[in-house]
């Protein structure tokens, strides 16, 4: 009665729902679009209750979140705990002695990871196929001129690929790609491209993946700092949260660039990390 005699209550409800969907389409992520289209179709065909369709649509996104959390959890057995990102060498060279030094160190490592590795993640998440993976893997191998970080990258990447192929069995091409890569002998399994490949195949968008990579880097350095007794577990957690805003701005600064722009921004770090094999006693591989 409010909107005129021709419109029924159902029509009013429909137009409100459609407006909400329209707003969601405008501001929502790309991955939501198929769900919204399906809901619109269901609604217009009168084949389902709108609320049900909405709930089904949202529920389709949740498995992806669980995969995402599992991938970023340090309990995933990818061997990340064996690497200190040059922190152990930096400590033995007295470049890092206090928690302030550690905070600066983490920021420098993140900046370097951003400038050197995010372009690779961006490129492969956009096209997670074998050909792109091979090209980027070989390119990164030529760019990781520091032997210590190059070997660390290969070790972590191989482990991640093995784990992902077993865990995410709903994506059989992970297993086949891994098998073909191993038999060809032409792949180095560098960490950043593998990370991007797995995320890309799991359906994560490029920005989330790049941010996630920065997160796992930060996570691993903090873990190494704790085991090197530079900071306690609670102190590390506090520091990690403090650095998060810097990590975010570094992620935004370096994301979505081409691989031809990849560069290293902390040559001192590179030099010190390269000294890892000269250490007399060491806890970590790199």
């Amino acid at each position, binding site marked *: 009665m409010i909107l005129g005699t021709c419109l029924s209550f159902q029509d009013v409800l429909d137009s409100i729902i459609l407006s909400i969907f329209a707003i969601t389409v405008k501001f929502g992520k790309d991955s939501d679009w198929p769900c919204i289209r399906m809901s619109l179709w269901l609604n217009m065909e009168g084949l389902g209750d709108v609320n049900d369709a909405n709930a089904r649509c949202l529920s389709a996104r949740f498995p992806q979140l669980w995969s995402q959390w599992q991938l970023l959890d340090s309990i995933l057995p990818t061997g990340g705990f064996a690497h200190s990102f040059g922190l152990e060498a930096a400590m*033995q*060279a*007295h*470049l890092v*002695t206090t928690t302030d030094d550690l905070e*600066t160190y983490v*920021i*420098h490592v993140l*900046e370097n990871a951003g*400038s050197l590795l995010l372009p690779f993640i961006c490129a492969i998440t956009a096209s997670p196929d074998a050909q792109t993976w091979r090209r980027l893997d*070989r*390119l990164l191998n*030529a*760019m990781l*001129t*520091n*032997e*210590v970080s*190059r070997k660390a990258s290969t070790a972590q990447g191989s482990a991640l690929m093995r784990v992902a192929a077993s865990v995410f069995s709903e994506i059989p091409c992970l297993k086949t790609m891994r098998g073909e890569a191993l038999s060809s002998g032409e792949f180095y399994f560098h960490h950043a491209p593998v990370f991007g490949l797995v995320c890309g195949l799991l359906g994560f968008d490029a920005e989330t993946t790049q941010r996630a990579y920065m997160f796992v880097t930060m996570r691993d350095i903090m873990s190494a700092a704790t085991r090197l007794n530079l900071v306690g577990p609670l102190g590390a957690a506090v520091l990690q949260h403090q650095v998060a805003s*810097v990590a975010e*701005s*570094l992620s935004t600064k370096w994301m979505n660039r081409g691989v031809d722009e*990849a*560069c*290293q*921004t*902390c*040559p*001192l770090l*590179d*030099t*010190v*990390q*390269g*000294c890892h094999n*000269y*250490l*007399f006693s060491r806890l970590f591989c790199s």
Partner: protein
Amino acid sequence: MERGRLIVEKVEGRSTLTRCFSKYPMKFIVPKKVGSSQTDVVWIYTITYGGGIVSGDSIAFDVTVADTCIAVLTTQSSTKVYKSIAAKCSQQLLEASIGRDALLVVIPDPVTCFSTARYSQTQNFTLATDSSLLLVDWITSGRHERGEKWAFSYYKSTNRILLQDGEPVFLDTTLIEQATHGTISDRMKDYQALAMIVLLGPKLQQIQKQTEEDVKKIMSQQFHFPSNSSSKPNMKPNFIASCSRFGPKGMGVVVRVASMTTEAIYSFLQHQLASMEELLGAPPYH
């Protein structure tokens, strides 16, 4: 735009400069005799008019070292990059192709960027079978006696080594710029000079091995005998160096150095490259 050009090829069995064309502001000086008449090598000094690179200068030249020839590219003094005017960036580009069994030696003095300078250099090297390359690429913090320590705005150095089919063997881009999170000076701690030395190819195999051993010895001493707290406070080493193998079959060695004085790097280069005198007629950095 025409670029500078240098061609070294065999004429009557001796390495000879058959083409020498330079474009302002660059000039080439070619001494007629370096070393004894037994040595078969061409030395080329690159000079800039005015003694430095002025804001906005763009310098580009190509070098061809034909099969079995030996050529040396060096400078008379450090390359000064003057302050940037209107945010202009100065550029230098070198494209070199090294023939079979040939050797190119690039042994400049360091680049010194003055306060607010903006500078970008790119050096591309294409190798043939059994080519050898000795490349030194280094930078100081500026006119540190005047108190200008890492006061420049932007420095980018790209070095690419490719095989004839275009496959990359070594790709390195180092970008040092004043950033939002800490100044360059913070990132460099107290180190005033950084260097990268690339040794690649059959003619440099002995120096590669010697350098790896020497660096391991120097750095192991640093790490095996850390100063204990009772005698003196834990101090950063004045000189840090690390060696890495790279490329197919570990064909190349890259040494990265960070030093608190420029002199220490000159000393290191003098010592490590002394045995090149036999091939080059004069020892580098004497």
